[in-house]
């Protein structure tokens, strides 16, 4: 559900968690992101940083400058001024990412897990079956058929937690239990209703089924997109996976290696919740690609 009034929960002496509801609903993330924007625009004294997530937003504050109660009052005022969720408009870049689905690298990681840790159904087949899809080919069509909304970053610096914007492409998947000890860099995976890209080789718990050669994390700042941060994404960005074959993957990989790769990103759009919801309302949510 979406709460009538957000809950303000303490996290020790210097954090406050604003909880908007307790379900996976894009509207809650839009509220979190626009509240984060409102906090930045209004410059509440004593707020160090905010971190919106799926259904909540964490605030880190300096208690020497503002009390928990005063912060709660300030935030409540901003929530009230946000108005209805459908009025929200957010700056949103769109990134096109080539991705090989059912690639040899994630298959290798899954096979290694099945051999050494726990046997399981291979991830693409497993997710396809759980979601009632005909086969892995349809899974690839459905997973790549939508833009993904970057709801938040975390777990590892720069790792995007993304949600499918097109309801015809919503999928769910359980997490690994126990977790995987390694995942190739650039792996595309999903857990719960969220899709992610692994910025570097790390352990992980999502079902994995694809790989992109495009870096989303760069300590050396070799590309202009990393000038202000080593993380590519910001909350509110969108990602579209473009299925590709191994030849294109290797072509892009070589461009990344020699520094000639051009990020395919569109930067002129605003995301309107009203327009989005009007579009969603016209769709047949039961349809699949």
């Amino acid at each position, binding site marked *: 559900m979406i709460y009538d009034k957000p809950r303000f*929960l*303490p*996290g*020790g*002496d*210097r*954090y406050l*968690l604003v*909880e908007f509801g*307790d*379900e*996976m609903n894009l509207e809650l993330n839009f509220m979190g992101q626009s509240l*984060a924007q409102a906090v930045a625009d209004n410059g509440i004294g004593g707020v*160090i*940083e*905010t*971190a*919106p*997530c*799926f*259904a*909540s*937003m*964490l605030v*880190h504050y300096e*208690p*020497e400058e503002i*009390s*928990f109660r005063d912060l709660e009052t300030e935030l409540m005022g901003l929530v009230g001024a946000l108005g209805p969720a459908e009025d929200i408009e957010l700056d949103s870049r769109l990134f096109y990412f080539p991705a090989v689905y059912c690639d040899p690298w994630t298959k290798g990681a899954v096979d290694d897990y099945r051999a050494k840790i726990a046997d399981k159904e291979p991830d693409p087949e497993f997710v396809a079956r759980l979601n009632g899809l005909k086969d892995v080919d349809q899974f690839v069509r459905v997973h790549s058929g939508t833009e993904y909304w970057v709801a*938040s*970053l*975390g*777990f*590892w*610096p*720069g*790792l995007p*937690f993304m949600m499918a914007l097109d309801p015809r492409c919503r999928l*769910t998947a*359980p*997490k690994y239990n126990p977790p995987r000890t390694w995942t190739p860099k650039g792996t595309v995976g999903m857990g*719960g*209703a*969220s899709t992610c890209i692994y910025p570097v080789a790390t352990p992980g718990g999502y079902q994995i089924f694809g790989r992109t050669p495009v870096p989303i994390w760069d*300590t050396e700042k070799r590309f202009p997109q990393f000038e202000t*941060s*080593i*993380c590519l994404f910001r*909350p509110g960005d969108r990602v579209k996976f473009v299925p590709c074959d191994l030849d294109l993957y290797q072509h892009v990989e070589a461009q990344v290696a020699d520094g000639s790769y051009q990020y395919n990103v569109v930067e002129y759009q605003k995301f309107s919740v009203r327009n989005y919801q009007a579009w969603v309302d016209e769709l047949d949510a039961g349809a699949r690609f």
Partner: protein
Amino acid sequence: MIEVVKQGLETSVQDWPGRLGYWNQGFPPSGPMDSWSFRLANVLVGNEPGAAGLECQYVGPTLKFRRGGVIAVTGADMQPKLDGTAIPMWESVAVTHGQTLELSFAKTGARGYIAVAGAVATEPWLGSRSTFHKAGVGGMDGHALQAGQVVPVGEGNGAVGRKIKDGAKPIIPADRRWSIEVVAGPNDDWIDAAGHRRFLNSDWKLSSKSDRTGFRLDGPDWTFTAKATNKAPEHGSEPSNIIDQGYPCGAINLAGQTPIILLNDGPSMGGFINPYTVPWGAFWKLGQSKPGDIFRFKTVSVEEAQALAHELREICSERSVVT
């Protein structure tokens, strides 16, 4: 300039309060785990309390000074020696060009701190010199010090013979039992009354599977309210699963049945509940505890937790110095 002769177990450049402002990209604050001892070391040598210095874990380094100056060693007792002769801790000491400082294993506590007048002058990254090992950023080349490296030091004029008053130093319990403050929340309503009683009235043993990311605790099982056991499926299948949320630094994060205290290098978000949070004013206790130590938790209010940090801020100042 300081030459690293022996690196110690894990010696890293840190500053306080670390790398703030990047939590929404997943970057933790890092910084010294016992910021009480760390800040006092800086105060002794005339630096700002948060200036960059060295954190030494369990076994300290051997360092050769390529320039004379003033240093102070605080925190865990790593039996510091200068050219083979014991030097006092909690006191500013002169070093001359070519002298060697040797720290050995921590007799009490876990983390020793070395401040040098002028402060460590590595390149800041995202506004902080703190080392974040996991991502390989900050500090010296993003990782713990390695033998053969040379650590740059800024210009500074420290005074020798400045000491910390006895009452102003952190006390590390000899019986290795710690009483640690916690604030209930943000997800305390997922735990039932019996679960809360068990958490607050049981011994929790610090597991060896612990690092600057998180401290795992061994203890009794948790029990839950209906919020945890009867919830929308998108939260996840375990009672301690919740829709991914931001994590406070210091959160006691319940992964299945294992509580993990998320520390200076911890994750910014994830899909487990945080029934309690350790306030920053109590972090120094975590920084000085070793695997096998016993924790008991006691609840304090948000305001009491804030007063604790305020009091520490007051202590970590000129007020605590005698000459």
